[in-house]
């Protein structure tokens, strides 16, 4: 048996006063940018076993790894477990994964300071933490074996969950040694393996742990939660961003069989029922009137036009809105005799459009305390927002974290929008009754939190060799961070990352990069690969146009610029992709190739896309990818992320576009918001650059490269640049 200790037993009896003080402290601390993990965990009752918060070993020797991150498709379950299993020398076939509970102290993302998944950090932030956890547990077993066998501590070895001693011929499984190992004090700095000694990491044995459950319907998502007495809620939401309920008539809604209550909440009017269908019918019968006085007045076309004007220096800027510099060097405006290239690029609002629309199960007011049963991308944020509504300590909010049917960023936001909505309803229902909030696809699409609509304006003066001599860059886009507890002191770099810090700018003697971050009533959010969703396109498509103007091969042109910038990782992936794609050989008849390279989340990806124009529309066939993501934990899942990320990016390149008319979302389902389907999906080959550097991001870096690669292939075929996405407008 593992020894369990209640880490916060002393906090269990917090008084009402302490609760209020605690919440205020936590909110205040967050607002000044601290990461008070200790404070945030006050009230948590997490059992930690002898092997620490990440590892549990059963009497039969089976190993369970606790995943502090969400598993929303990116393979974190397998990748994180493999890191532990490698250092522990566990039997990989007997390693399983469980979601860790919410506890900011035990399970903070080491790069964020709070518990949460994002920025492609699940593996990078856990790398050393889980290696140490696995190695410490291993050391406890070898020490226990040495003591039992009376041999020197350095002599027992471990393989596949069995501890052995060669000289004496003794061996024992983790299960047999469990009690003795549990009593050993874990070493604080256990010896870690060198890369050469890895037997699991980097091999094709590291495969997903959830494929069977996800192929049988058994995998449990928020949508699937069943509980005794569970009620289902749907909400009539505002027709426009910023509109508020002014009144409602629920007489007809209450007549629908199965409807148990109709409740006004800050975001609308909730219909609570015994089944999903009854709730939906109840909502259909509900009449709500809205106060639209403060609603967003603009549509996407007007926003786009305004952004273009501002970037061109036309029209007055609203008060307090000003251009902010993200990169500057030399005098980019100085006259010169080189050729001038100018272009503008437009990118629409994008919905994340996860397959599982947002949803949540909450219980408030019962004896069990406040509990969420939900796929939580940021448990700490969800705890904080829940605690404010339910008036309890954030750390005491329990979260049972489930599989998510996708997120791509959507499930983490500073307001915990859909979680908060569910908690408001559950609080009104009270008595600890479980309430499942179900959003329809239309609710999900219309709720916003879009990738912001974005405009770029680029002017490049070329030198006599055709390389950029002066680069002027203007970006207009909403800030993702403004008004949030994590708002940076300077500019919100997520709006320009990828242009800012680009090796192409580094290789350019004079640079003037500025960003304008207007405020709108449209909620915006990070969307898989964040700033790179537009900056990679602009930089890479611009470079191809410059290369063509200069009469140079796009790969050679890039390599020369990367040389100037000292971007060695870019050079390595580009050379690898070019070699594997046969860049120097003729493309098949009717096919053109396009190349793009981009660094995001610490990883560099190069792609070469083969494109055929069919009926005026690009059809993408083979895509050769090379990625440098540091140490590769699971080559197969890295490939899966590059494949999937490419499809996500290609969907936005070809189809995705959210249209607003006067602050109202026009496209609310897949019939009017087309996304990539099977017949359009390319065949992606993924080549991983061998590396012993620490692992860097994998979930997002595969997304932003395909767009410019395809645009560059189209440029090669037609001579025409792509200055607005999506390429195919519905």
């Amino acid at each position: 048996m593992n020894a369990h200790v209640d880490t916060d037993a002393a906090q269990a009896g917090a008084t009402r006063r302490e609760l209020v003080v605690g919440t205020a402290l936590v909110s205040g601390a967050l607002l000044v940018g601290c990461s008070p993990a200790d404070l945030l965990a006050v009230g948590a009752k997490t059992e930690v076993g002898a092997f620490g918060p990440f590892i549990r070993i059963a009497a039969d020797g089976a190993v369970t790894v606790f995943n502090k991150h969400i598993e929303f498709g990116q393979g974190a379950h397998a990748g994180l477990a493999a890191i532990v299993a490698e250092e522990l020398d566990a039997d990989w076939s007997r390693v399983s994964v469980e979601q860790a509970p919410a506890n900011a102290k035990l399970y903070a993302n080491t790069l964020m300071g709070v518990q949460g998944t994002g920025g492609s950090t699940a593996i990078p932030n856990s790398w050393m933490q889980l290696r140490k956890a696995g190695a410490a547990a291993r050391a406890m077993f070898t020490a226990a074996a040495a003591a039992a066998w009376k041999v020197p501590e350095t002599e027992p070895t471990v393989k596949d969950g069995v501890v052995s001693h060669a000289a004496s011929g003794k061996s024992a499984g983790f299960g047999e040694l469990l009690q003795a190992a549990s009593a050993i004090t874990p070493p604080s700095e256990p010896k870690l393996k060198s890369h050469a000694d890895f037997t699991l990491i980097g091999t094709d044995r590291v495969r997903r742990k959830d494929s069977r459950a996800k192929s049988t319907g058994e995998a449990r998502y928020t949508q699937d939660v069943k509980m005794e007495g569970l009620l289902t809620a749907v909400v009539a939401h505002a027709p426009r961003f910023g509109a508020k309920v002014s009144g409602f008539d629920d007489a007809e809604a209450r007549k629908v069989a199965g409807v148990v209550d109709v409740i006004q909440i800050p975001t609308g009017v909730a219909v609570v029922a015994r089944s999903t269908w009854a709730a939906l019918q109840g909502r259909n019968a509900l009449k709500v009137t809205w106060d639209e006085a403060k609603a967003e007045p603009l549509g996407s076309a007007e926003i786009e036009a305004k952004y273009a004007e501002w970037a061109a220096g036309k029209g007055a800027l609203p008060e307090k809105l000003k251009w902010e510099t993200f990169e500057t060097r030399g005098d980019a405006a100085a006259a010169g005799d080189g050729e001038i290239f100018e272009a503008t690029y437009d990118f629409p609002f994008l919905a994340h459009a996860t397959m599982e629309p947002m949803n949540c199960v909450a219980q408030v007011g019962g004896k069990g305390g406040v509990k969420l049963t939900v796929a939580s991308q940021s448990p700490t944020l969800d705890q904080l927002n829940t605690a404010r509504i339910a008036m309890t300590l954030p750390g005491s909010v329990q979260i049972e974290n489930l599989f998510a049917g996708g997120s791509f960023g959507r499930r983490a936001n500073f307001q915990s929008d859909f979680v908060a909505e569910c908690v408001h309803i559950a609080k009104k229902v009270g008595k600890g009754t479980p309430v499942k909030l179900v959003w329809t696809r239309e609710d999900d699409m219309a709720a916003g939190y879009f990738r912001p609509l974005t405009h770029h304006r680029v002017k490049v003066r070329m030198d006599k060799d055709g390389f950029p001599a002066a680069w002027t860059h203007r970006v207009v886009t909403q800030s993702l961070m403004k008004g949030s507890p994590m708002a940076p002191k300077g500019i919100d770099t997520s709006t320009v990352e990828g242009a800012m810090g680009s090796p192409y700018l580094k290789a350019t003697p004079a640079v003037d990069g500025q960003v304008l971050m207007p405020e709108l009533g449209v909620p915006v959010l990070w969307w898989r690969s964040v700033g790179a969703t537009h900056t990679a396109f602009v930089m890479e498509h611009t470079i191809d146009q410059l290369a063509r103007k200069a009469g140079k091969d796009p790969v050679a042109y890039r390599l020369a610029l990367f040389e100037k910038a000292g971007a060695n990782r870019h050079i390595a992936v580009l050379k690898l992709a070019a070699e594997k794609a046969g860049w120097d050989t003729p493309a098949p008849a009717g096919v053109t190739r396009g190349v793009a390279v981009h660094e995001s989340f610490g990883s560099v990806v190069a792609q070469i896309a083969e494109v055929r124009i069919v009926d005026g529309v690009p059809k993408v066939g083979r895509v050769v990818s090379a990625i440098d993501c540091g140490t590769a934990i699971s080559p197969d899942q890295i490939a899966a992320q590059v494949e999937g990320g490419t499809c996500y990016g290609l969907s936005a390149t070809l189809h995705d576009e959210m249209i607003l008319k006067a602050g109202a979302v026009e496209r609310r389902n897949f019939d009017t918001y087309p996304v990539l389907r099977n017949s359009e999906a390319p065949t992606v080959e993924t080549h991983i650059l061998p590396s012993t550097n620490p692992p860097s991001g994998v979930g997002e870096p595969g997304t932003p490269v395909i767009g410019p690669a395809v645009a560059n292939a189209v440029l090669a075929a037609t001579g025409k640049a792509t200055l607005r996405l999506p390429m195919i407008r519905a």
Partner: protein
Amino acid sequence: MATSLEINGRTVQVEAAPDTPLLWVLRDEAGLTGSKYGCGVGQCGACTVLADGAPVRSCSLPVSALAGVKITTIEGLGGTHPVQDAWVKLDVPQCGYCQSGQIMSAVALLAGNANPSDADIDAAMDGNICRCGAYQRIRAAIREAAAQSRA
């Protein structure tokens, strides 16, 4: 209103208004949550089940239309159907939410066509959206299942 349905070889009595879509009856009444809600308008395929062997979108099919129809859901495949095995072998799922629907469409395709061409796969699978973009592996797994079934 009590309705009798034949689901996965068993007769199931459910309480549901006649216009209730099969999906909500499966999920809320019959306790079969493998079939997913994705769009409610037959556009995404996450709710795909078989009706007398043909793939249908259960979100858009009222239970009143299903008297005497044999319904098969993902749960009815048994867990080790060749298509499911191929899905596991190639680690097709990412988030996994659409995969019940993908698998049911693939099962229907292979039941009528033991050796589908790429065009056949495209035609059969284009009604099933996967936002994770597992399409390449879905195609490969269908070929794998077809090869295993022929072997």
